[in-house]
């Protein structure tokens, strides 16, 4: 391999001005991270910091590494993707009590149960700092904030407990004032394969100052903090005269004085591989256990995923995404005919003009949004059917024949110079021919046609056609060009179906 990598704290400091409140615990955590990373011997470009939203989540800006200030609560999810696709990266998640346990509660759980090889640093200040001081899910009962003016009535979450429950394989707790210990825990977390979770008790000097005072204050912390060491008895106190023993009756740890009743041999040894031990420690606040509470080795998500990929590839060869998408249970959704709920009875009149109407149904029209374009749509768009025409001096017998032959209800009567002279329709046949004593071979079309029929130019709007038809009850409307030459006929059916098609 290449030469040894020598980095310093400076290599991890970005050129950004750090914008936390003066005195915020975040500064100490940032400095500790920047001092710890060089110890790992990992090239700078292999580090990624992913954060969610909140004061702590500004962290990636201040690190001179890759980083994403991502989505509220979703940092573990993004980090999972980053780690999976690039397993050789050292991926760190920076989150807070709100980001991780309110909005991101779900995401933190799944990162834990999958044992993704990430390092999650949860800055726990027990308040919403960025939004100026509301209750957080780790605020103790009774906490008075802007959103809980009479004191919180909610049982808080303990981040360590959540991490243990989710399945994280490295769970630790530390506090912002103890940089040396914090750095050591971070170092161990970075070396750990699997999900490493560190709760960092952090002071929000502005909105929740002194929340951890009992454990951070120089005078108090010696008596209240329990520094865990694997394989050593859990002893604490300024004079190291107190310790934890299992309370068989209460089912938890109890604090005892080392002296007459209990000797140092009676004090319980810290076993970080014991989940039971870890859960009992997670419930304590006197003394406050600091250090590595739980650490075991289990297969990581990355190993499982890549192992499976290799195995399946060996058996089946390289996959094909296209084949995968289309291999089964795929179908095309096509428009179906509307179901007719009402009862339909009876039979079709076979004598009707199927051919003609089939043709009408096939009328092609532009795919436009009618509601918007109706006024601007012209008869041209409707593509009227070419008219069947007849001369005015043709015999009525011929007209009848043409209508029957083409299965249509209207003929346009045109002059030899192709001007529209009239229209003759089945209504005219009904009203003026049928039942009358007329010899159809003796009479001409012009005697029965409607002269000077209403015609619309091709550029008339569809809207006009609708109004003409409905107001004047015409079933057929001739369409003419600029020269009055007929170019089409529109039936009420054409129009209705055109409209329906475009609604």
């Amino acid at each position: 391999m290449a030469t040894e990598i020598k980095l310093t704290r400076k290599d991890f400091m970005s050129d950004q001005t750090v914008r936390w409140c003066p005195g915020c615990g975040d500064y100490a955590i940032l400095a500790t991270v920047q001092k710890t990373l060089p110890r790992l011997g990992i090239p700078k470009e292999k580090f990624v910091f992913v954060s969610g939203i909140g004061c702590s989540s500004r962290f990636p800006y201040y690190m001179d590494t890759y980083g994403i200030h991502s989505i509220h609560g979703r940092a573990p999810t993004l980090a999972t993707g980053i780690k999976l696709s690039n397993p050789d990266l050292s991926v760190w998640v920076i989150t807070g009590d709100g980001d991780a346990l309110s909005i991101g509660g779900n995401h933190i759980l799944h990162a834990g149960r999958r044992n993704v090889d990430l390092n999650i640093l949860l800055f726990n200040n027990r308040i919403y700092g960025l939004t100026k001081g509301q209750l957080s899910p780790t605020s103790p009962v009774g906490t008075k904030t802007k959103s809980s003016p009479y004191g919180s009535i909610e049982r808080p979450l303990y981040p360590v407990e959540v991490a243990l429950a989710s399945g994280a394989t490295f769970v630790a707790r530390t506090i912002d004032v103890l940089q040396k210990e914090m750095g050591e825990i971070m170092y161990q977390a970075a070396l750990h394969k699997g999900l490493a979770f560190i709760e960092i008790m952090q002071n929000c000097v502005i909105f929740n100052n002194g929340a951890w005072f009992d454990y951070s204050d120089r005078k108090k912390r010696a008596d209240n903090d329990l520094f865990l060491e694997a394989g050593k008895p859990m002893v604490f106190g300024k004079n190291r005269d107190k310790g934890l023993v299992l309370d068989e009756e209460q089912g938890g740890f109890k604090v005892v004085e080392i002296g007459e009743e209990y000797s140092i041999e009676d004090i319980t040894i810290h076993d970080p591989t014991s989940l039971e031990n870890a859960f009992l420690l997670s419930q304590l606040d006197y003394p406050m256990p600091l250090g590595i509470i739980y650490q075991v080795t289990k297969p990581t998500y990355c190993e499982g995923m890549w192992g499976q990929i290799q195995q399946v590839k060996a058996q089946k060869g390289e996959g094909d995404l296209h084949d995968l998408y289309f291999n089964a249970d795929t179908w095309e959704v096509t428009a179906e005919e509307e179901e007719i709920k009402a009862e339909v009875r009876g039979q079709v009149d076979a004598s009707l003009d199927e051919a003609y109407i089939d043709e009408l149904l096939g009328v092609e029209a532009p795919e436009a949004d009618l509601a918007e374009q109706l006024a601007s749509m012209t008869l041209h768009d409707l593509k009227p059917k070419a008219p069947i025409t007849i001369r005015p001096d043709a015999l009525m017998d011929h007209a009848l024949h043409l209508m029957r032959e083409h299965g249509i209800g209207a003929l346009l009567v045109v002059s030899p110079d192709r001007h529209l002279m009239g229209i003759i329709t089945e209504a005219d046949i009904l009203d003026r021919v049928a039942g009358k004593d007329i010899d159809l071979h003796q009479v001409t079309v012009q005697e029965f046609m409607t002269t000077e029929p209403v015609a619309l130019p091709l550029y008339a709007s569809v809207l006009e056609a609708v109004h003409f038809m409905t107001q004047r009850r015409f079933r057929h409307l001739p369409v003419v060009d600029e020269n009055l030459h007929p170019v089409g006929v529109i039936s009420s059916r054409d129009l209705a179906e055109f409209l329906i098609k475009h609604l």
Partner: protein
Amino acid sequence: MDLLAGLKQESVTEMDLSDYCTVDASASVRDVLTQMQVTHCRNALVLQEGKLVGIFTDRDVLMKVADNKDALDKPITDLMTPDPVTLSKAATAADALAVMARKHIRNVPIVEDDGSVVGNFTHFSVLDFLAEQFPDIPLDSYPVYPRRFSRRRHGG
């Protein structure tokens, strides 16, 4: 689209179903023609004891009667379409349109359960409905070319 949704909701009974006249099944073709001419009606619904038994339209006149004087004295039941496609009052406008398109017909009588006629659904029924949804335009003042309107009732 809203209008289409409207058609799917609009009961056929809310629409103009007046495009028909009724004749009795005992009538001759000549009787029916006379009635259609007098009432300016293009579609005759044939009833027997108040129940719909057939339909006779101007298309039938064109196809079967216009040049056939022998047909005039036949009973209407010989030339009508017996037992035509109908819909119940529960139908929507969209149902009626679908039936018309699928069966290639221009009239769908709407009937009660007992077979009595409620009305006749035609393309005008739906055009009227749609026309109401659109802004009205004054036809005669609109610069339509050519501006020639028939004054006779039956034109196009």
